[in-house]
C-alpha cells in the first residue's frame, strides 16, 4: 500500500488534527469527537447545516465547513458512515436555536445513522430536519431498492442550502432550497482504477489494464458497465447522455456544471473532459452559467471523474453566486 500514513486505523483522527493544525482560524474539532465545526459555530440566528459521512471523500465534507456553507461536518471512518452519537455532536455544535438541517447522501448506513442522531437530538430539544441527496443516475431510482446514490452533486446542495441559511432563512425555507437543488441536480461518474482503504491495505476491486467502469460510485460500487477504456470525448458523451436522459434538464435551461476528480485524475484530464462536456451541453440547448472543475468529492485515490449538472432558476443562481468562504469552495 503506497500511502503517507502512520497507523492505518488512526487516519481519520490524524486527518482531523492535521486540519485543525492547518486551519485553526476556520475549523475547530468538537472535543472528543470526529466533528469539525466552524470556529464561530453555532452562529446565532442561523439555521445550522450538518453533513458528513464516511471519510475518504476529501475535501468532502470538512472542506465545506465555513461561511456560506456548512456549520459542521461529521467524519466517519473511511467509507463508513459516522455513528449516531458523532452526528449528534455535530448537530449540537451547529444548533443556535434556529434548528438544524442534515444533508445526507443516500446510502443505507448514512441514512440510518443520521436518522438515529436526529431522533436523539429531538429528545434533547433540538429541531432537526433532513434532506437526502440522490444525484447519481448510474443507479435506478426505484422505491423497491435503496435508490440513487448521493455523489458530487451533494456539494451543490451544501452551497445552495448554505447560502440560504446564511441569508437568515428559516429551517423550512432552507430545506426547501436544498430540496430544489436536489431535484435539479444529476450526476454520473466513471473510474479507471480502484481505490485503497488504508486499513484494508489493498485495492477494493480488480480492474483490467484496459478497462474502465461506467457509473462507478464514490466507494467503488459499480454502476452500469465495465467497458474498454474510451477516449475523453466518448466518456463525456456517455456521462452527459445518461444525465440528460433523466429528463431534468431541457433545452433552454441554464445550468451549473461540476467536473469532479475522484482523487488521482490530474486537473489536465478534467479540463480535457470539460471541453467535450461543455460542447455537448451547448449542443443540447443548455446554457452554461458556471463551471467548476476540480476535486470536490473524491474516492480516496481512485482515478476517474464525475460530471454533475444542476439546473438553475433565479433563486438558485443567486444562492450559487452568494459568497462562500470554505477551503474547498469559494465564491
Amino acid at each position, binding site marked *: 500500500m503506497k500511502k503517507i500514513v502512520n497507523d492505518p*486505523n488512526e487516519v481519520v483522527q490524524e486527518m482531523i488534527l492535521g486540519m485543525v493544525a492547518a486551519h485553526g482560524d476556520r475549523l475547530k474539532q468538537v472535543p472528543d469527537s470526529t466533528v469539525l465545526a466552524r470556529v464561530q459555530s453555532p452562529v446565532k440566528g442561523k439555521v445550522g447545516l450538518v453533513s458528513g459521512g*464516511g471519510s475518504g471523500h476529501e475535501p468532502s465534507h470538512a472542506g465545506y465547513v465555513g461561511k456560506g456553507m456548512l456549520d459542521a461536518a461529521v467524519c*466517519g*471512518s*473511511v*467509507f*463508513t*458512515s*459516522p*455513528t*449516531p*452519537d*458523532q452526528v449528534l455532536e455535530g448537530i449540537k455544535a451547529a444548533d443556535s436555536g434556529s434548528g438544524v438541517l442534515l444533508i445526507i447522501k443516500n*446510502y*443505507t*448506513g448514512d441514512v*440510518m*445513522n443520521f436518522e*438515529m442522531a436526529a431522533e436523539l437530538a429531538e429528545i434533547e430539544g433540538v429541531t432537526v430536519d433532513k434532506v437526502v441527496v440522490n444525484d447519481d443516475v448510474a*443507479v435506478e431510482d426505484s422505491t*423497491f*431498492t*435503496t435508490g440513487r*446514490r448521493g455523489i458530487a452533486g451533494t456539494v451543490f446542495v451544501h452551497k445552495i442550502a448554505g447560502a440560504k441559511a446564511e441569508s437568515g432563512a428559516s429551517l423550512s425555507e432552507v430545506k426547501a432550497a436544498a430540496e430544489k437543488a436536489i431535484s435539479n441536480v444529476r450526476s454520473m461518474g466513471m473510474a479507471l482504477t480502484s481505490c485503497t*482503504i488504508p*486499513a*484494508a491495505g489493498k485495492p*477494493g*476491486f480488480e480492474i483490467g489494464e484496459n478497462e474502465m467502469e461506467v457509473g462507478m*460510485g464514490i*466507494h*467503488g*460500487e*459499480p*454502476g452500469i458497465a465495465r467497458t474498454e477504456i474510451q477516449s475523453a470525448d466518448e466518456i463525456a458523451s456517455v456521462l452527459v447522455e445518461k444525465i440528460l436522459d433523466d429528463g431534468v434538464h431541457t433545452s433552454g435551461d441554464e445550468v451549473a456544471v461540476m467536473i469532479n476528480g475522484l482523487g488521482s485524475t490530474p486537473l489536465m484530464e478534467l479540463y480535457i473532459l470539460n471541453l467535450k462536456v461543455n460542447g455537448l451541453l451547448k449542443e443540447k440547448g443548455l446554457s452554461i452559467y458556471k463551471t467548476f472543475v476540480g476535486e470536490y468529492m473524491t474516492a480516496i485515490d481512485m482515478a476517474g471523474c464525475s460530471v454533475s449538472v444542476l439546473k438553475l432558476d433565479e433563486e438558485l443562481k443567486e444562492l450559487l453566486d452568494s459568497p462562500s468562504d470554505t477551503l474547498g469552495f469559494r465564491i
Partner: protein
Amino acid sequence: MMGLTNEHLAKWLEKTNAKIQENKTFLTNLDQAIGDGDHGINMSRGFDEAVKKISSTEYKTSSDLLKDWAMTLLSKVGGASGPLYGTALLKFSMSMKDKEEVDYSSLTAGIEEGLNGLIQRGQAQEGHKTMVDVWSPVVTFLKEQPAFNPEGFKEIAKEAMEKTKDMKAIKGRAAYLKERSIGHLDPGSVSSYYLFSSLAEVIEEEGVGL
C-alpha cells in the same frame, strides 16, 4: 443451572469477537467483492470496543449488559451494520427489561425482537441478501424447537448464511451490483453467522440448561 447468566452473555460476546477478529480480512474481502470493503474493519473495531466495555463493567441485569453491548456497537461500528446490530441488540435488551433470567423462551423472544428491529431499521425483507436472511430462519427455528438445540441451531445459521451466496442483492450496497452480486456471500450474513454460532458454542461448552 438454568438460563444464560451475564457471564454467559459476556462469553458469547467474546467468542463472537474472537471469530470476527480472526476473520477480519475475510469479512473485508467479502465486502470488497460486493460492497465497499469495510465490513471486517467496522465489526472488528466495534466488537473489540464492546468486549472492552462489557469486561470492565459489573452488570445487575442481562438487559443492562445487552444495552451496553448494543450502544457500543451503535457508537463504534458505523456504516450500515452499526445501526443494524445496535438496533437488534437494543431491542433484545429492551425485551429482557423485566426478565430475571434468559431462559429459552425469553432468548427466543429477544432474538425475534432483534430481528423485528433489524427489519424496521433497514426495511429489508428475506431474500434481499442481507443479514435478515440469517436472523429470520434462526428465529423460525428457535420458535419451532421445544428447547435449545445447539447443533441444529448452528446448522440452520450456517445454511442460511451460505444461501445468501446465490441471492441477488436488493438492499444494501451490494444491490448496486444487481446480477453481479450473485455468487458472493453477504458479509453481514457471515458476521451474523459468527454471532449465532458463538451463542450455540457457549451454550454447549458451558452446559447451559436451556
